[in-house]
Structure formats: C-alpha cells, structure tokens
C-alpha cells in the first residue's frame, strides 16, 4: 500500500502575462500512495485546479517533476501523456464536461472506445446502472439534471478502470443534497475499485471524507497534520 502513485517534487508553475509573469504554484512537493484518497483544499484562485491539471498531465510545469505511476510526466510527449491518461487516469469536472450531442451511454463509451475496449457498450451500460441511471441511457445531457449529469461523468471517469482519479470540485455546481449524493457515489466507487483519488475542493465537508487533506494558498501547498491510518469515512 505504501508505494507512491504520485510523486511531485519542487513543482513551480508560472504563466507569462503581457507585462509580467505570474507564479501560480511555488515549490510544491508531495507524495500520494496507491489507493489513498487526498483532498486539496483552497480558495478560488489559490492554484488548486492548476495543480490538479499538472498532476494529471493535462499541462506541463515550468519547473519540477511529476511522476505518475512510475512515469515522469514532464518527460513524456503529448501523445505519450495522452496514452497514459487513456489507460490510467479518470477525471470528474466541476462543470461535468459531457458532450451535449451524445447520449449518456455514448458519453460513457467515449473513453472506452479511445482505449480500444472490446465491448464498450456493455461496460458503459453496467456503469450507468451502477450509478443509478440505467433508465436514462439514451438521454442527452440537456435532458438530465445537474446531479444526473455528474453521475454520468463519474461513470465515464471509472469506465477505463483508472488507477488514479482526479476530481475538480465535483460537487461545486450542485446543491447540498445532490452534492452529498454525488460525493457518496464517488467515494463508494473509489473504494470499490481501489482507485487513488485526488480531489480539489473548497468544501471542507467533502475534504474530510478523504484520507489526507492538503491546503493550498497563493500557490504554496501545506499538509496540516491530519493523516490517519484509519479507513476514510465513506
């Protein structure tokens, strides 16, 4: 259980603006073990979503390295990073990011087809049934409520059997009750699949359901002493 899934050392990220350079992340280092669930908490603009993107290989850092499941992301080409994402990474976004033209079923099938899965429809169906949307397979995102859309997104995230799941404010666009239900589902699936979960949120209640919490402020990451060896609350 103790081998690191994600190893980040001295990560710094800057973006150039017209007049000067903005440092978004400053010397971030952390290690996350396989199967752990981690919350990164911070206010808007603290750099948490940027950090998540860098951890997931959606972007490359200005300085420092990210090692995901043994692969140094910054050394990979764009296509190699894509392959890594396709095989080992799942995503859940605040704004769901479902394709409006596709049905729920087709949205979940998407990563399966990209990964060359043999029976994408069967698997997508099972997943949608698992998240309680077995009756809504042919509905498009527009015909689904926010909570339902996020459940489709969760089903999609688990479709490719990822080893690590990145969630960006997964309940940010939902009301309390729906958010609660969605996070329950996310945690349960995560537990079932033994996935490593990295979640960015500003919601303290959600954060405490993860095994570890980091907080980020002005691009600097700190880990309050909250590490427990107990099972996370589901």
């Amino acid at each position, binding site marked *: 259980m103790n081998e690191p899934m994600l190893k980040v050392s001295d990560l710094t990220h800057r973006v150039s603006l017209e007049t000067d350079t903005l440092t978004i992340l400053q010397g971030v280092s952390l290690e996350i073990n396989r199967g752990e669930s981690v919350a990164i908490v911070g206010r808007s603009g603290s750099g948490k979503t*940027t950090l998540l*993107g860098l951890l997931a290989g*959606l*972007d*490359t850092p200005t300085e420092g390295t990210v090692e995901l499941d043994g692969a140094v992301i910054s050394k990979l080409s*764009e*296509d190699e990073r*894509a*392959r*890594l*994402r*396709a*095989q080992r*990474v799942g*995503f859940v*976004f605040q*704004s769901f*990011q479902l*394709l*409006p*033209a*596709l049905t729920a079923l*087709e949205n979940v*099938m*998407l*990563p*399966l*087809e*990209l*990964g*060359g*899965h*043999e*029976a*994408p*429809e069967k698997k997508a169906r099972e997943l949608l049934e698992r998240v309680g949307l077995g009756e809504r397979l042919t509905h498009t995102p*527009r*015909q689904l409520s926010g909570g339902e859309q996020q459940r489709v997104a969760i089903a*999609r995230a688990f479709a*490719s059997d990822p080893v690590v799941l990145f969630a960006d404010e997964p309940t940010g666009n939902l009301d309390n009750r729906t958010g609660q239900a969605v996070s329950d589902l996310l945690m349960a699936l995560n537990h079932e699949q033994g996935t490593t979960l990295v979640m960015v949120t500003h919601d303290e209640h959600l954060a405490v359901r993860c095994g570890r919490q980091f907080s980020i402020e002005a691009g600097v990451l700190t880990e309050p002493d909250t590490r427990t060896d107990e099972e996370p609350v589901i």
Partner: protein
Amino acid sequence: MVASRKLMSIRRDWRERDVRVVLAALMIAVATVATIALFASQLQRTLVSSASSFLAADRQLEAENGRPIPDAWLAEAQNRQLETGQMVEFSTMVFGADTFQLVSIKAVSNEYPLRGQVEYQLGPDEPRQLVSSGPGPGEVWINPRLLRLLDTSVGDTLEVGNLELEISGLLVREPDGGFRLSALAPRVMMHADDVPDTGVIQEGSRVEYVYLFAGEEAALEGYYRWLQPQLEPSHEWEGVRDGETFSRSLERAERFLLLGGSLAVMLAAVAVAVASRQYALSQRDTVALLKTLGVSSQGIGRLYLQRLGLWGLAGAVGGLVIALPLYWLLSRLLSDVLERPVDYQLDPAALAPSLLTALVSLFAFAYPPIRRLRNVPAMRVLRSQPGESGREALPDLIVALVAIFGLVWMYAGEVSLVLALLGGLILLLGTLALLGWLMVLGLRRISGGGNAWRLALVGLYRHRRASLSQIAVFAMTLMLAATLILVRTSLLADWQAQLPENTPNHFLINIAPDVVKDVDAFWQDRGQPLDQLYPMVRGRFTELNGEPVKEAVSKDERVGALNRELNLTWMESLPADNEIVEGEWFSPGETRGVSVEAELAEKLGLKVGDELTFTIGSEKVTEAVTSIRTVQWDSMKPNFYMAFPPGGGLEEMPATWITSFYLSPGNKNALNEFSRQYPTISVLEIDHIIERIQDIVRQVTQAIEAILALILAAALVVMAAVVSATLRDRQREGALLRTLGGRQSLLVRSTMLEFALLGLFAGVLGVTAAEAAVWTLQFRMFEGEFQWHWAIVLPIPLLSAVVLALFGRWQLRPVLNVSPMLLLRRLE
C-alpha cells in the same frame, strides 16, 4: 433600454461570427443579383441594338416588287417621330479601266445606316475606319475584290450605267451585310441620289427598295399596326427578333447568367438560414437575461426586428457597393467585344430585384429562427432549458423553400428552371432521408475499437443529426455549383460545336444547273471542298388544303414566310443536323410529299397530311406534308423551310443551286479567279461575321467565368456558415477527447476521416441531384442532349471529401496545440 440597445448595436453584432456570415451572405446575394440583373438588362439592350445593326435599323420594310413605297408611308413614319432611311438594291454591269463585271449595287440615302456602322478603308493597305454614313454623291465604295477583278484602284472612276463615279474607298463591312442570301456579290455601294442619273433602273428591272426605320419601340409597333393593313404580299416587314446566330448566342448567355444568379441566390439564402439559426441559438442566454430584467416578449421581438432591418440595410448597401464596380467591369468587357461604347446605365428595374432579394432572404431565411427568440423562457437564466427539437424548424423550411423558388421564378422567369431545381432538391432530400435511415441502421452496429476508421464511423453515427444536416447543406451547395459547372460546360461545348473550326464561311448562290459539277471541281482542286449542294426554287406558299393560305392560317401576321417567296429545295437524305419530329423522311424512290421546318409548321399550324400548294412563277405544285423537321438555323449552312423529294414536281421548275463551304484565309484570292470564271455566281462572304460571333462567345465566356467566381464565393460562405455552426461543439469534443487520453494523431485521423466520409456522401448526392437538374434543364433551356458528365461526377465527390477533410483538420487546429486544461477552461 439604453443598455439593451447598446447590447444590440450593429458594431457589437459585427464581432459575432454568425452575424458576419449572415451579412456576407446577404451582400453576396445582393451583389450577384444586382450585377447579373444589370448586366443582363444591358445584354438585352445590346442584343436588340446589335441585332438592329444587322438591319442597319430597328425595322426594315422591303419592297420586292420593284416599286418604291408610297411617300405617304414615309411621311407617316416621320410623323410618328421615327427616323427613316432608304436603300435601293439591284444588280448591274459596271465598267472599270478596261473590263466589266456584274456587281450588286446598294445605293443608300444620307441617313444610312440608322443603326450600326459601315467599315471602310481608303486603300488596300490603309487602316479600317468606322463611319455612320455611306459614300457621298458622286462616289462609290467597292468590295476590295473588285479592285483586282476590274484591274482598277482607289481614285479611279467606275462607270455605272450612264454615270461615272469616283472610287473613294473600299467597303469592308456593311452593318446589314448579314446573312441575306439575296445580296449579290461583289458589292458596290453608292449614294441613292445618283441612281436616277445612271439610267440603270428601267420599268421591269429587278430592283429591291428597302426602307429603314428606327425609333422608340412603341412608336415602331404603332407604325406597324398602321402600316400592316396596307402591305402587299411583296412587302416584307423585318424586325430584330428573327433569331440570328448572334442574338441566339447572347440569349443563351443571358439565360446562363440568370441561372447562375438564381443559384447564387439559393446558396446565399442557405448561408443566411444556417448562420441566422446559429445566431439565434447563441442569443438565447442574452434574451433570457433581458427578460429577467423586465423586457417583454414584444420588446424582444421589436429589438431583433430592428437589428434585422439594420442588417438588411447593411447587406443591401454592401452588396451594391460590390456590384457596381463589377457591373462596370463586365460592361467594359462587353464594349470591348462590340468595339463600341456601351452605356453604363443603372437600370432601376434591374436594381429592384436585388433589393427584393435582400428583403426576402432576411425575412424568409433569417427571421423565423430569430422570431422564436421571443419564446425563450426567462427561467433559462437559472436553469438550462431543453433546446429546440428541430420540429419547429419544419415550417421554416417550407417558408424557405417557397421563398427560394419564388425568388428564382421572379428572377429567371422560367418555370422549367424552378421545377428542375425543385426536382433536384426533392431528389436530394429524399435520398438524404433514406441515407440517414441506412446510416442509423448500419453505423449503430459499429462500436468499440480505438482505430481511426471505427472512431470516424462512430463519430458519424454519434453526430447523426448534425452530420445529416451538414451533408444536406454541403450536398445542396455542391449540387448548385455542379449544376452551374455542367451547364457552363455544355453551353460552351454547344457554342463550339455550333461554330467549329471549319464552319462554312462562304456561300455560293445562284449556281446554274449546268455548271454545278464544274464549280464543285473548281473548289475540290483547290483543297476547299464544298459542302452539300442544294437546288433552290423560289416559290410562294399560297394554298393550304385548297384554301388561300392567308385565310386558312390564323391571323398571326408576323409569319414572314407567307409574305415573301420561300426557297424551296429537293434533297434525297435528311441533313445531319436536321431532325424529324413528326412523320417520316422520304423513303428511297419516293417522289411525292414535302417536309416542313418545325417552327414554321407550328406557327402556321401545319400537320402531317396537310396539302400545301406553292406558286412558282405561273405554275402550281401541291404536295402533302409527310414530315416535320427541326433545322439548325445557326449552322452556317443552307437551310430550307420546305424540302421536297428528288424527282418530284419541283425538279421541272427553273432552279439555281446553293452551297456553303469553308475557305481558309490564305485561299481568299481564289475567290477572284472564281468570280472571273463564274461571273454570275454570287459569293456571300460571312467570315467577318463568324469571327465576330466567335469573339463574342469568347468574351461572354469570360463574363460567365466572372459570375461563376461570385457563385463559388457564395458556396464558400455556405461552407463557412456550416462549419462555424458546429465549430464550438467540435472543439469542445476535441479537447475532451484529448483529456480522456485520445492521441493527437488518432484525433486528427478520425476527424479527417469523418469529414472525408461526410464530404464523399455530400459529393455523391450533390452530383446526382445536379445531373437530375441538368437532365431537365438541358431539354428545356439549352436544347442539348443528356449524358452523364463523368468529368464532374467522379472528381466532385473526391474533391469534396478532400476539402472537407482539410476543413476538419483546420477546425481541430486550436484543439491540438493548446494544453487540454486551458482548452476546457476556455470552452466552459
């Protein structure tokens, strides 16, 4: 309201891609219609005036009876503000230095020509000049060939009867030299006032008096109505609408331009419809917000109506700004062809359709989706509402179809054109529905697998609704473009076929029966073989089924054939370019019957079996109609209204023979030798006319290409409209696919494949529909025969596949080079 008005400002609009597409499409529609309508109206005027110059007037009155018309007739014409002029034509012997020659004299009054110009030169090596008069009294201008025939030169005198006249110029071209077979070569032109002094014209001489009239169309018509009851059978009133080759070419060009214009309007309308629908979708949030802030549905309706009005104004003004210089260019081109200035006239009647086009395009195509914005619920601000199902768009489609065909009808004035295009479109949409069904059926089975092919097919299925509507629009665009290219190609081929390289450019007329063989041999020896030789008997059509023809036939007085002697012939086999439309051609050995030209038969209401009686001299010949045949009047070969079988009653009548042949410019001198050897045979030189027609065809072709360019611009705008309609969705999808681990190369390949397939489908459909439309058009408008156009059927689908694949690649561009994270944020 100030803020909301600001929100609605046209400057803000311009920043929206969809609005730019709507405006560009409107401008192209207006520009095309305006350019073509202006140019077509000018072509029309030119056509009339060019054809007029073939008569040297707007109308001619020929008196074949050898007597001048009463002075009162001319006085009446002058009373009616018509210009008049006079010519006297006759044949006589003239004397040069020490030899004589039979010539055809044309004596003209001071006013000649009322239309067109005379081309002459002061000596064989002097430059040609265009003048608006004939030679003055005491002078003659002669055909250059006469110089050698008479062994004389400019400045010498020429004896015409009792009068000695000075040769002051060489006659190169007379505006009314046209196709008149009665003209006897070679020509000498003199002044009409000198004619009495020559003493050549005696009682009973064969003389033709020709009177020229020009003026307002209404005055001419009025004059003819006054004159008509007094005309005798030997009087012939000739107008400009008598289908000369030249005007036929221009008429076809005009039709083509109208067709092109209609297609451009249809394309632009499609672009307006697609872009405004997209615009309406993008405005839904704004409308919901405005409603939340308290603007009523009516208020929303008004706001959008106002901006539509603004667009219309901008489109119309912009379109005209494009159209005017284009029209100027085209009319310059035309004036180059005609070698004379053409008036750059902004005909308001031609501008009206373009403004109407803008109005109709806006209200039939742009307004319906925008009107529905009133119904957007304010609740949308809080919660995304279900969008349009597409069912609401059905009435739009019907309104659009009706409007589009109304426009084309108004514009080209051809029901057959409207029907052909409608048929093509219905075929297209029907096939599309079938294809859609097959696609859903077939593609649903494909799933899984990470290779580009399968992803592309899955993509097509996934976006089936968008794919089908894109295929529909692309196919429609390709259909219209292909129709135009096909029609253009066949039009040009038609023209070239009409006047091929070795088109006969000389006629030999009045060949006596006993020299026919010698004449044939003469030209055979010089490597310029004659075409078919035809006997020609002059006769008048006098009785139909035993009744005098003028009573038997309906009162359509315009049938000139009844007023003059017709050229009758006999022939064994049907000329290659004639076609039997009714009855049968004479069987071998048959000596009875007559074959009638189809247009004349239609005008006179003649049917197979009717008994026709012809008066030839004092004899009468009666034959039953055995066939009706079409004739290529513009073939530059002898053509006949009436053809008899060999061995019939006609053969006993006094006949002369006629033929046409191609004489290469280098052999022109052989004509002198020929004329000396056969002085009684008339040579009609039409090489100038043929050159001129070929020139015109070339230049009108250029005008057509210019219009084609405008239309392709319209097609590109349609493409842009359609691509911009799905751009955001596609980019979002690309970004997400990359986030989910799609490799760039896979993304590129599958997208390109998906678009290539789309392009291929659209291409096949579009070309098929175009062939269907052309099939209909070909018969009705351009009188050609249908065949598959492989040169277009094969490349267009392939080309469209390639172009769309590149389009697909191009729209992926922003997705490929940016980090997926940035993209998702940007697209949120």
